[in-house]
């Protein structure tokens, strides 16, 4: 096992890794930017080094500074957390070249799964269902191809992004006109008018499967996390198990995720994301080749420690539990991402000094946070200030516990999404579990819908 690990991250996730290290008897090394001098991870780690100025590019994304910190502290491994360098195949490779273990999958696995088109091809190879669509770009046989996919369809720009060149077509008679519009829009936006057609998934939920794999060909898949409550593709609430996933669907999703991991020769932890339609069909979207923000949900449901597991796997150990153990569901768990943002002002960041902090507590409450009374939330990084995770015997009780714990959390000085979470939790569709990825936009952001 490693004697010393450097954590190339900040905020709550840096603390999460430091805590795992301490329990495992491993020394921890924090790195920080000038803006994070007063940060809790700097105080909590066994050693800490300032690596650069506030902008992430010069600090938390700076390969040379991070690897130098590892060299002078004699750390044997680097935990990248999430975000920053966690899915950077080049960084994983450079770590290896400098004799340092990157705690995550291999650079080649990150490359294979990190790019959407390559990952989708790999999913097809592993017989994992993907969103049906044209294999390549659209030609003169577009109507035949669209009918094979099945209406409604989405016309998407090959070089797309940001909603440009995107057209929903429900009626075959509109296809030709919409296709031409999408092509000219894509040409104007990206200088490339090529488009492809994909099946439009109605009322989808975002459901993902956590996996863990060792270097000996063992892969386990955990119970799903439902991350359907999103705002502009940013997850706000994650829960497990999903209110709409049956044991049969769960087993199929876990099997699909395991097959994909085996096909990609994946090692360490990762997450396979799917869209789930109201009929129980699911479609692969992408793989996150790292620890997820919402990993505590799975930890609360199963009672297993994913960061501890991650470190063991990176050190070359075998998976410490089997599929049967990984599948156990002991609780219902919900996670709330508390961001320093102003929900009344289009979720604009709200950095500043938190004059006093009151943390929630009690039975079934976990708070992963780096904030403290007097802490100043810097404006340079993402606005996540805390993750409130609750767990209880069932969903109904977990929701009640969330509402109770959210009310206890006080962070005067900065605006947060706390009350927004309470509103979402009190909505009848959330309570019934009957909602899809448009839920937040539909009921809480009417101006944007």
């Amino acid at each position, binding site marked *: 096992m490693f004697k010393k690990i450097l954590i190339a991250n900040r905020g709550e996730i840096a603390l999460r890794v430091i805590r795992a290290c301490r329990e495992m008897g491993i020394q921890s090394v924090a790195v920080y930017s000038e803006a994070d001098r007063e940060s809790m991870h700097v105080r909590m780690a066994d050693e800490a080094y*300032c*690596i*650069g*100025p506030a902008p992430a590019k010069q600090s938390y994304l700076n390969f*040379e*500074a991070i*690897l130098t910190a590892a060299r*002078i502290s004699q750390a044997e491994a680097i935990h990248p957390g999430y975000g920053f360098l966690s899915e950077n195949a080049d960084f994983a490779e450079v770590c290896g070249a400098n004799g340092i273990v990157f705690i995550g999958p291999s650079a080649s696995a990150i490359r294979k799964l990190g790019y959407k088109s390559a990952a989708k091809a790999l999913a097809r190879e592993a017989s994992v269902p993907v969103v049906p669509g044209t294999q390549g770009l659209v030609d003169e046989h577009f109507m035949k191809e669209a009918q094979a996919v099945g209406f409604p369809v989405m016309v998407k720009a090959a070089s797309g992004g940001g909603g440009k060149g995107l057209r929903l077509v429900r009626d075959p008679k509109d296809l030709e006109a919409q296709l031409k519009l999408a092509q000219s829009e894509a040409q104007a936006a990206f200088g490339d008018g090529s488009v492809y057609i994909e099946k439009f998934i109605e009322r989808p939920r975002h459901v993902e499967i956590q996996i863990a794999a060792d270097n000996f060909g063992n892969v386990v898949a955990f119970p799903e996390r439902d991350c359907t409550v999103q705002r502009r593709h940013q997850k706000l609430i994650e829960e497990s198990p999903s209110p709409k996933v049956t044991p049969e669907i769960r087993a199929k999703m876990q099997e699909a995720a395991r097959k994909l991991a085996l096909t990609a020769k994946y090692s360490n932890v990762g997450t396979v994301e799917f869209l789930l339609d109201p009929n129980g069909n699911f479609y692969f979207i992408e793989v996150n080749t790292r620890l997820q923000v919402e990993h505590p949900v799975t930890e609360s449901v199963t009672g297993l420690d994913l960061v501890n597991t991650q470190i063991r796997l990176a050190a070359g150990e075998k998976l410490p539990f089997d599929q049967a153990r990984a599948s156990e569901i002991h609780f219902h768990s919900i996670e709330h991402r508390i961001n320093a943002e102003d929900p009344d002002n289009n979720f604009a960041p709200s950095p500043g000094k938190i004059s006093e902090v009151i943390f929630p507590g009690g039975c079934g409450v976990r708070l992963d946070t780096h904030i403290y009374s007097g802490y100043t939330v810097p404006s340079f990084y993402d606005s996540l200030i805390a993750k409130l995770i609750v767990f209880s015997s069932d969903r109904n009780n977990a929701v009640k516990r969330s509402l109770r714990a959210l009310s206890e959390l006080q962070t005067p000085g900065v605006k947060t999404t706390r009350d927004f979470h309470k509103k979402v939790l009190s909505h009848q569709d959330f309570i019934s579990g009957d909602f899809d990825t448009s839920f937040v936009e539909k009921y809480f952001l009417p101006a944007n819908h």
Partner: protein
Amino acid sequence: MKTEEIKEILNWVKSTDLTQVSLKEKGSGFGFSTSEHADESFAEMPAPRYQCVSAPAIGTFHWSQPGRPQKVEEGISLPAEEALGYIETLPGKTVPVKTPSSGKVARILVEESSPVAYGQALIFIEPDGK
């Protein structure tokens, strides 16, 4: 004042918003600035006496490479942009440490081959004409 005490004060200053500090104890003392641009509210005050040369990168500090000028000692005068030493980051990679202005070396806080963090105070210079 002892070097260790100065280091401690510097670390404290870095945890605040202060850019300039003057300190007097038993008749002697020092002043320094962490910013090149003095705050306007300081316009009436005498300019800080010492300038801090801080580490431009994390790494291992070394005095000037072979062939460079004399070993830096307290009391010697140096021109501006003089390469005092360098910081070794990764094998074969270095970042130079240069004097920000011409002046006299007032205090050396760093030792040969010691690890330094980004922004760590290495040397104090008393700029010429101050």
